[in-house]
């Protein structure tokens, strides 16, 4: 029989408690249990980055972490970052440059980009390409993604957000 564990996770600022099957991946928990469908599953073994979420402030792959491992921790998803306004400038830059097509990779791309913007304010264009190289986008050819992140990096630096 499957084992269940009572698990409490602060998701986008709100604590939620559920009995969770031990084998449930974090991304499946977010999608199926909480209806936070902005995080996507695509390769389901940590390659493509579509399930990228933030746990205690660091991005990781929602398909490589079990939900029970997030017990007592803080998880932020694209929905949370959108509602808080944390990445509004980044989303606007992506919109303006059409740095997305089908949008399936986009939440993961934005989560990764926000970590770059936060942790690597001096990144060059090549370093942006390198940092983003764990997020697969099959539609855009990446150039507009890199352009958008670069533009936001410059703008945040100018406005002192970095």
């Amino acid at each position: 029989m499957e084992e269940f564990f009572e698990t409490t996770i602060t998701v986008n600022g709100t604590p939620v408690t559920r009995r969770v099957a031990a084998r449930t991946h974090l991304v499946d928990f977010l999608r199926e249990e909480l209806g936070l469908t902005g995080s996507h599953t695509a390769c389901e073994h940590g390659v493509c980055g579509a399930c990228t979420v933030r746990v205690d402030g660091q991005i990781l792959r929602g398909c490589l972490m079990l939900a029970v491992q997030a017990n007592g921790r803080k998880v932020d998803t694209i929905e949370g970052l959108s509602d808080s306004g944390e990445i509004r400038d980044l989303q606007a830059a992506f919109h303006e440059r059409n740095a997305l097509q089908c949008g399936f990779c986009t939440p993961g791309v934005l989560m990764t980009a926000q970590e770059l913007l936060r942790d690597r304010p001096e990144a060059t264009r090549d370093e942006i390409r390198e940092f983003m190289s764990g997020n697969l986008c099959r539609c855009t050819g990446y150039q507009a993604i890199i352009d958008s992140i670069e533009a936001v990096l410059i703008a945040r630096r100018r406005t002192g957000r970095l």
Partner: protein
Amino acid sequence: MNERVAPERLAPEPRAEERKAPPAQTAATGYIGASVPRANAKRLLEGRGCYVDDLKLPRLAHVVFFRSPHAHARIRKLDLSRARTQPGVLAAFDGRAIAEYCSPWVGVLGHLKGIKSPPQHAVAIERACSQGEAVAAIVAETRAQAEDALQHVEAEWEELPAVTGMEEALAGRTVIHPELGDNICFRRELATEGVEQAFAAADLVVEETFGFGRHTGVTLEGRSILADYNAAEHSLTVYQATQAPHMMQDIFSRHLGIPEANVRVICKDVGGSFGIKVHVYPDEMATAAISVMLRRPVKFAADRLESFLTDIHAREHKAKVRLACTRDGRILAFDLDDLTAIGPYSVYPRTSGIEGNQVVNLTGGPYRHQEYRARLNVVFTNKNVTCQYRAVGHPVAVALTEGIVDVAAAKLGLDPAEFRRRNLIPDDAYPYTFPSGIKFEKLSHHQCLDKLLALMDYAGLRAEQAQLRTRGVYRGIGLAAMIEVTNPSPAFYGVGGARISAQDGATVRLEPSGMVTCLSSVTEQGQGTDGIFAQICATAVGVSVDQVRVITGDTGVTPYGGGTWASRGAGIGGEAVLQAGKALKSNILDLAAAVLGADKATLEVRDNAVCDKATGESKLPLAEVGRIGYFRPDTLPLKFQAELSATRHYTPREYAFTFTNGIQASLVEVDTDTGFVRLLKHWCVEDCGTVINPLLVDEQIRGGIVQGIGAAMLEECLYSAEGQLLNGSLADYLVPMTGDVPDIEVAHVCTPTRQSELGAKGVGEAGTAGAPGAVMNAINDALAPLGARVTDQPFTPERILKALKKV
């Protein structure tokens, strides 16, 4: 833009679209040609899109499939009884049970003479003909429970000889479907009268064989479907990640025996398609059948391994091509012999004969030779099926054409750009009929070539290349001219008997508030259909673009049409939107003329209001038109009926296909010690006629180029001799990531098609069509001084080292 004043180190180069002149305009003006960000991107940016797997319905059941582990095997025993008793399991079915609800199909078309394929079932009966073919379906309350139950399926197999090689299949010692007589699905031969003579008289004949690996689309969202049968109504609502909802409506109707009007297909957000999601898949048909059988909603979402095993694959060609030319560099003739393998079935309903057929149609396409011979063999094998994936046949035709053209240029000691200039069809030669029979309305090869050479500073790069070679740095420059099929008429499928619509429709409706709703039969997979239709609609009606809402992807709501494939959405669906918008405007002006007591001819719609055409003075806001038309028609003249919606359809008729043209260039550096190739830069000059939204067009081209780069450098579905897929995961099957691709410069020449008022041709596949040929030629240019050459895609480090005789 703001970042122009940014610190030097990070200031980006002005992008190509900012440097070039705005595209020429046709009769349509306003938002046509403007880089309007698309409204529907906003929900995707907040993770608030809705893909099929995001949907839940009451009593939703989940289906998973038990699939053949063998490439070719008879099912000796299939016992589902233990699986049925597992926790949460609702039902388990074999192929026979499903077949009682879903009739089999045959993937042939009348105009592909002689094409043959056996009947195919939703779930295989008796025999599996490729690894991954579904032989049983398990339905449970959750997906995890269904997957758990899979291991309790008891199957015994009798392995049959697997035919995996193309030549082996052609030779036919083992015939996969004995009732067909041989392994040949489709064969085509053509020859112009003087082709023998041209080869005999040529000063130079060059020949080479090119190999094209099997690869696949890798949509980030896997195939997914949620079928919801309502027994009381005998109706079926299907939420599906598909490019062609009306085609699927017809197919569900006919194969499940449900009246067409009782079937509704809805595509919400689709996570990439690229041709992968325009075909009939057995597991998706089975899901719909199971919904009928269980009288409840059922969902299937392919996982990544299932995607690699069962999403259509593409390419896998081996093509020998010969070129005859004069010593002064005039091409006289092409001779093609193409062999391609498609798996055990021709895919329904578009068939798997189309890609090879396209290679025959398009090889040599940019050039003005008059003689051509082609032979095509399309054979069955025991691997996964292949079918139409982005750019269908074009990447093959372009690479082998451009590859052999470079060989000829080198033999003659001519610069590749100069050799092309001597042979590209002149820009004033149109309309033009190519020896394969295809007709070009108007192309711009020479303008594109000139623009490309200037854009990339071809002469400067050649000088730099020569200088670097003296230092042992091996850079290469590759060119690839191309033509591309877009805006297909019924000549593509309809004439062959397929119920696939080549026309599209649009309904444009004025809302009471003065806003405008546009419903179109074209679908949105992220390419920007909704966005450009809003631009066209706003322009046609005379409203601002933020006043337009676009609805696509619902057979219950939109006019009937083909959907998204063959680069047709903008050119065909866009023209329907334009004409519907103009019709609505005319109707608005009728009402305004009646209200204002004015002559209709003196009125115009501008800036969300009816105004005086001559002075621009606002006379009646559209909100007022809506109010009167819908709520106070009693105030209108007795015989006047307001018609505040209009529907129009459009089909290209004059030409079978509206060809586009373009040329790409690639700059690479080969590390001759490791075999690694670094792509330094890529350029594309493309002529897709009227550019509706440069931002979206350029992004389509870039994304397409990157998929082409994937084909050239990384992507291949590797099979063992026994027909086992060896790399069915994203860790093993490599696709381009940010670090693998260079910046790509895009520019345009604009030759609108005269067949439509909009003048738009297609653009979605051009990048993929040309990139592999350009990259191949660049690599071979880099290797040329070392006497090495590669012709088998993908150009892996191993293949390059082998060419250099280092391994």
